[in-house]
């Protein structure tokens, strides 16, 4: 997810007219593409474990200073993991969730209504802001009406470690960051290629029709670029899912460690375990490519 966002932003920035931004993105892409992913994972893991403060550094000393401090008093990055507030579900939380889901549905309904108005009458209703309002405002209102059913449990320093909150372990953070940055570099290049593949005549034509640059990008260039982008993007997602097996480098117990490690050691049946593991990844890959194929077919050029 982060990889996609990074990649799309990076892809657009790499085509920016701004020389410095272009060069900066080129350095990012080349740096991540030409160095093994494994090296990035262990490097980021080392950064997380060696470069971050210990929990005891957060203790306020007698002179009122601490070696490290929490961000917004809610997030603590330590060498034992990242501590974030955990939600506490109150009695009425179900209603709140239901309203949230309903209002998101409402936002989509509004969008399709606006589209219908546009196609029927040619009148352009504002899309983004009303949809966002519909999605968010009722939930916030109900949150206060219902008496704050969802609270937050902040992590606090207690004893030798943080108590409360949720701990996101360092291996997971390192793996997630490294995979996102690495895959983001590849997606950047894919997006760039996709946008470049739309011929210049298309954007010139849409300017000639009097469209504004924003709308040109959204209605003319991106839909065409998307067709070129989706297939290589699929294979990047497949790579990502397979690269997640590198969790072994930082000792995060993913399926390779459980099925290919613990089960194998306990049963001693190497062949069966490896077969199951292979089938698991094969199944995962097939599911991802199946979903992406559906998406691809929906975006594909409709030919006769």
């Amino acid at each position: 997810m982060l990889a996609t966002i990074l990649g799309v932003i990076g892809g657009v920035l790499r085509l920016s007219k701004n020389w410095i931004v272009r060069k900066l993105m080129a350095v990012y892409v080349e740096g991540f593409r030409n160095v093994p992913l494994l090296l990035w994972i262990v490097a980021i893991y080392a950064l997380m474990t060696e470069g971050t403060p210990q929990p005891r550094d957060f203790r306020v000393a007698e002179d009122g200073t601490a070696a490290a401090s929490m961000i917004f008093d809610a997030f603590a990055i330590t060498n034992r993991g990242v501590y974030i507030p955990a939600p506490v579900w109150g009695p009425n939380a179900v209603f709140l969730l239901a309203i949230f889901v309903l209002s998101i549905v409402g936002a989509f309904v509004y969008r399709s209504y606006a589209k219908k108005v546009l196609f029927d009458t040619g009148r352009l209703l504002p899309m983004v802001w009303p949809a966002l309002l519909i999605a968010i405002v009722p939930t916030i209102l109900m949150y206060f009406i219902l008496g704050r059913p969802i609270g937050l449990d902040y992590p606090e320093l207690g004893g030798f470690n943080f108590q409360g909150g949720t701990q996101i372990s360092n291996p997971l953070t390192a793996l997630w960051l490294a995979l996102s940055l690495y895959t983001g570099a590849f997606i950047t290049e894919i997006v760039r290629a996709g946008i470049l593949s739309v011929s210049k005549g298309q954007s010139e034509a849409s300017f000639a029709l009097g469209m504004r640059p924003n709308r040109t990008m959204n209605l003319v260039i991106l839909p065409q670029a998307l067709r070129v982008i989706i297939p290589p993007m699929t294979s990047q997602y497949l790579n990502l899912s397979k690269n997640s097996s590198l969790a072994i480098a930082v000792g995060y117990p993913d399926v390779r460690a459980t099925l290919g490690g613990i089960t194998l050691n306990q049963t001693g049946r190497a062949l069966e375990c490896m077969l199951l593991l292979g089938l698991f990844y094969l199944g995962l890959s097939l599911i991802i490519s199946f979903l992406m194929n559906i998406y691809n077919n929906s975006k594909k050029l409709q030919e006769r």
Partner: protein
Amino acid sequence: MSDTDSEVISFFVREKMLEEQEPPLTERGAVKWLRENLFSSWLNGLLTIVSLYVIWYILSGIVPWLWSPTWSLGSLSECREVLTGLGETTHQACWGVIRDRWQQLLFGFYPSDAYWRPTLALVILLAGLAPVLFGSIPRWFLLFSAATPFVLFLLLWGGPIWTPLLVGVGLVLGVVAFRYLVGVNQIVAVLAAIIVPVLFWLFLVEPIAFELTYTAPIGLEFIPSKDFGGFMLSVVIGVAAIILSLPLGIMLALGRASDLFIVTKLSVIFIEIIRGVPLIVWLFTASLLLNYFLPPGTSFDLTLRVIIMVTLFSAAYIAEVVRGGLAAVPKGQYEGADSLGLSYWQSMQLIVLPQALKISIPGIVNTFIGLFKDTTLVVFIGLLDPLGLTSAIRASTDWNGIYWELYVFIGVLFFIACYGMGRYSLWLETKLQRENR
């Protein structure tokens, strides 16, 4: 009247040419470049300032760390002492570790008096690759390239000179048999070219090599592949897998595009199964399972098993890339070749593959870069690649707790290799493109 007219006109006509003037300040030199590239709109200006800040932030973190007078020191504690003595923080690199251990990072546990062997092997490899990579070198040099793999094997692993020599002789025998029989019948010639060397290898190489070693023990000291390590191991696995997987991948792609039902299905199954599973699982399979499928009593070297697995893995990916290239060749080309009366192999070799491979160069090089980077994964099955050696180095008391210096060193090595491959592919593309016009 006319007089006044001419007067009026002459009033407006300039008699002297204006001297050429420089464009205004905002339209020339650095200022113009700045305006166009960095500050063309307020958003762009904002982006410029933000990215300048990012660059400054990153550099101000990294440069003092890199600039650290610790090249000659022998341990991490010494480094810390010296740096505190200089009144600087300990957040600085300790480059002594690279000076102390660079040989280990490059060669692993290869005997230090034999370091000239992999070095020479690298030189020979580059020399052997040159005629293949750059077309401008004379053709007879290709013979040297063909002999390179055997020389490399001899240099890296050592042992008596006769075994690789005889394996090479087997290949020559195959070529001779093909040349001799091709006039008689093509299929017979192809079969003979396969069967003769295989028979030679199976039945004659071992006794002859044994006899020759007994009578004339020429050769180098044998070095088992468990002593291989470091960047050298990555290069050995990477280069071997790259060279082996290209032909295999092309064959698989042709198999997948073929009309023969069984060949197509087998290729599809092979490719999809290999691609569906991460390389790391295949490496574990290689280390744990491959012996199940071999006749009892045979035991392979782990490095060799890894090379086989990595080769199969990247062959599947190359097959897909080449398939894309094959699909991009217009159908008229296939039909044209058929109508000229070329056989399948002739049409592939002369017409389709040159065009398809040209299209798929970026993809193939991409796969090779990925393959080379993935050689670091062998650390998980106990081979000592550079990353594995970092923990070995950290295990010594002198260098306990050192991370970044080693990672930076390894990262730079890989970056140079992979960036070089990427540039080569770009160069090749532009070169082939120009010839096309």
